[in-house]
């Protein structure tokens, strides 16, 4: 039997019937054949006879018409899919990225802006790294400097908030930088990609002037929330409305399908600063969630650890047993920041004994900073500021809205 390639036409003699179909792949010892009826079946390779190897058909180039009178948006892709196409011959789904592809997949976009696109990466977001955050920030900064009215970053949802927080700290932006993704894959007619893309493009040309995440507000296709990049967290594995602002209300909303934008008075307005970038990071930082009985041996070695974010219990606690170990880390220069695994509410280490012990050894209270954001902030502060006193000051203050001075009611 000759070797089959994906796309080869085959004839399959199975169960007394002859089927024509297309060879897709081998899986678990079976040849997966896409029958002409569209169904895939997995059958013994021996039932299949090679017929022909079709000449690949070039997809017709369909150029997208862009309206020069509209503002210019820059779309930077890191791997989050906002448009995809299905090859019905093989059933394969390919994600699409050039402006033409996107505009044809989501025609509504062409009424909002004209677009230039950059495909920076094509990775799953769990494979993001601090080094990629830096490249992303640099690319965003370049687009801002090149006069983009706004920047959209398409990103896998898993670690989108880490990246958006990193860009927040690294880049001073006078224009909206909107992170967007989809929770339900773009290859399904029900995908949230279309609405999220249209709403985020709208947010990107709005009077906003900060880094934000724009995603479904509820399970319905009726509006997107605009979340401050440093106050948002993915709070559901799969729902469309997984992204939630923690401790503050969203910065605003974009209604769908009307695309009306409402910004809260607390949203930073377009043009509030000059573009700047400080992409340095100290990657020798770690985040640890504490739990009862967690042994102090779980702490990394002092030598290599410049910064440590603890996600403590309650108001920001770890067991008494940990205090001397943390003290020796601190004494050797590790900057330690306390956050809470409750996610909501504020760290306060003045109330209980273990907290006061932590303050004594120099642990910095992270206020209501989210643990993940605190990690990004710690990397960034240690990367950009070497004076320990100034580091402490920066870590105790809100730099870009990542912590609040007062805790609202109702959240």
């Amino acid at each position, binding site marked *: 039997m000759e070797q089959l390639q994906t796309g080869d036409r085959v004839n399959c003699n199975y169960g007394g019937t002859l089927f024509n179909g297309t060879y897709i792949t081998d899986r678990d010892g079976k040849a997966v054949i896409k029958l002409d009826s569209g169904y895939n079946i997995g059958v013994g390779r021996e039932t299949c006879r090679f017929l022909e190897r079709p000449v690949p058909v070039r997809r017709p180039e369909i150029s997208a018409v862009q309206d020069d009178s509209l503002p210019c948006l820059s779309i930077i892709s890191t791997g989050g899919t906002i448009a995809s196409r299905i090859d*019905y011959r093989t059933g394969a789904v390919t994600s699409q990225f050039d402006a033409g592809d996107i505009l044809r997949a989501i025609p509504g976009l062409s009424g909002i802006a004209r677009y230039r696109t950059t495909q920076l990466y094509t990775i799953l977001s769990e494979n993001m790294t601090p080094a990629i955050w830096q490249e992303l920030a640099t690319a965003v900064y370049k687009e801002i400097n090149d006069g983009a009215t706004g920047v959209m970053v398409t990103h896998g949802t898993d670690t989108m908030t880490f990246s958006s927080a990193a860009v927040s700290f690294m880049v001073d932006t006078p224009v909206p930088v909107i992170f967007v993704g989809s929770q339900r894959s773009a290859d399904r007619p029900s995908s949230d990609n*279309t609405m999220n893309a249209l709403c985020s493009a709208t947010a990107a040309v709005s009077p906003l002037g900060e880094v934000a995440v724009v995603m479904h507000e509820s399970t319905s296709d009726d509006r997107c929330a605009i979340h401050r990049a440093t106050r948002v967290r993915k709070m559901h594995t*799969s*729902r469309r409305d997984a992204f939630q602002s923690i401790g503050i209300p969203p910065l605003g909303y974009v209604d769908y399908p009307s695309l009306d934008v409402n910004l809260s008075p607390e949203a930073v307005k377009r043009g509030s600063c000059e573009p700047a970038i400080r992409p340095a990071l100290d990657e020798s930082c770690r985040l640890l969630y504490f739990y009862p009985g967690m042994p102090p041996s779980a702490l990394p070695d002092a030598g290599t650890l410049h910064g440590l974010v603890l996600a403590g219990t309650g108001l920001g606690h770890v067991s008494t047993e940990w205090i001397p170990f943390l003290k020796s880390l601190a004494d050797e220069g590790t900057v330690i920041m306390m956050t809470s695994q409750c996610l909501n509410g504020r760290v306060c280490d003045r109330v209980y004994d273990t907290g006061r012990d932590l303050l004594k050894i120099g642990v910095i209270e992270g206020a209501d900073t989210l643990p993940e954001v605190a990690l990004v902030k710690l990397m960034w502060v240690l990367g950009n500021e070497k004076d320990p006193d100034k580091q402490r000051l920066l870590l105790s203050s809100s730099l870009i809205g990542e912590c609040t001075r007062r805790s609202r009611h109702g959240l």
Partner: protein
Amino acid sequence: MDYEKIGLLAGIEIHQQLDTKEKLFCRCPTLLRKSGEHTGEYHRYLRATESEMGEIDGAAREEMKRERKFTYYTYDSTCLVENDEEPPAPLNQEALLLSLTIAKMFGMTPIEQVNVMRKLVIDGSNTSGFQRTALVAVHGTLPNGGRIETLCLEEEAAQRVEGETFSVDRLGIPLVEITTSPCMHTPEEVREMAGYLGMVLRSTGKVKRGLGTIRQDVNISIKGGARIEVKGVQELDLVADVVKREAQRQQNLILIRDQLISRGASVQPGPVDVTTLFAGTGSAILKKAKMILAVRLNGFSGLVGTEVQPGRRLGTEMSDYAKICGVGGIFHTDELPAYGITQNEVESLHRTLGTDENDCIVLVAATPKQAHCAAMQVIKRARFALDGVPEETRKMLPEGNSAYMRPLPGAARMYPETDVLPVNVGPSTWDCIALPELLTVRAHRFSTELALDEGLARQIAFSERLPLFERSIAETINPTLAASTILMTLKEIQRDGADISMISDDLFIEVLHAVELGKAAKEAIPEILKMIAKGAGSGEAIKKCAPAVSRDQLHAIITKIVDERAVFVREKGNAALAPLMGVVMAEVRGSSDGKVVSELLRKEIARVSTSR
């Protein structure tokens, strides 16, 4: 009609809901709910995904002619999978085994590795925009020698509540789809094969019963016609009618085509705006419309008004096409003057368009966007008329007629469901599948082994309550008593307004046991069951409706009655039996079995008669 002569070919696609504990791709119960019970709702839009060639499927494109906002109702018995908010769970093993069982019953060959596909459906009935489906087996045989081509395991769609609102309770219930080849040649044969397929499915004892749980699609073509799929025939009795009417329709369309060709008829490629022409019209509909477009069908005169099915004309078919664009219908000159449109207006229309009485003009009146869309649909359908029968998916209308629904799907728009891993079906699995007894075989066995009346045997074998019957006889209840109580008594008391869903199998069998033990008379069964239907326990109901009368007590009652009427008894002898039965039964109020009473009565009559 001579179906052989016209070359009728028909096939069936049968969709049967399976009665599994959980749904096909989530762990929710397969429970239908009342839409009023919904606990939440949400709104979605669906968009057809672009294909590799930059095309969108024709059927999908037609669905997209309108931006549709769908509303979905959720229940406490549904979950995030139905809402398309969570990846599907692995393929339900119970459903897969059941579908394999069915496949084996038809002598089919299972697919070695079952791959779940997504089939695009963006009419709102699937929250995801696709239906998950897997080809499970191929190549079975039918009693008529025809072939079953495929058996697929699919998820059921959401039920439409009204308009664009759907209820997700039904979504995800497992369904087997069995497709036959076009191997049937008469309407009756189609009816028979559909019946056979249903019988085999029900023989598993694991399929849903009741209206809407089984649906037939019928594929029909005649020589010179085209393949037509009529969807959603829910009643078996209508299958033959659907085939007949479709054959008739295709014949008529062919006749029309032949006439059009002989007339040299043609269709003008675009519509003409005639809005101003009707500025002063008396027609309410035309007056209201923002735009009126005219489609010119040269040489079509008279044929647009020709019937293709009883009550349905070629014009009706054009109207069906136009309605896709959201318009209410069309006007054509074959039916004018009418609807407030005058003869003068028709004539001025012909003058303006340069047509004459040989031509037919179709008018559409709506908003500019809708009117254009509808006019182009009319032109499309008119052109098809020049070719004869267009391939279509049609929906069944009452009495077996059908109306246009959408084009036949081209190459099925399917791609893999990557969230569900393929399942290997090895020989060990296949070989272990036990074949259930066919209901026909079972009916025969009941009549022979259980000495049931043949009709009763068939009825109980095909009944939804078969499991209750089987349990009853397993518990040594008299088969005839069990069958007749199940088939007749229950139906009777239900007709009388009893809520028989309150009568659990346990309670039912307790009552029959009581009857068999003589604790209650057979005659009291309806009253006892009615009380149970109101919430009583079996003991309580029996006590109330059939107060226990011991054999001794009964004996005493009968002795007394007979003694009091000794003269009469002596006079009549055994002929006294019938009148006295009535007296005794009235006395014991159903607490004693008639047979027992009659036996005792007979003895007493004998005693008194002989003791002169």
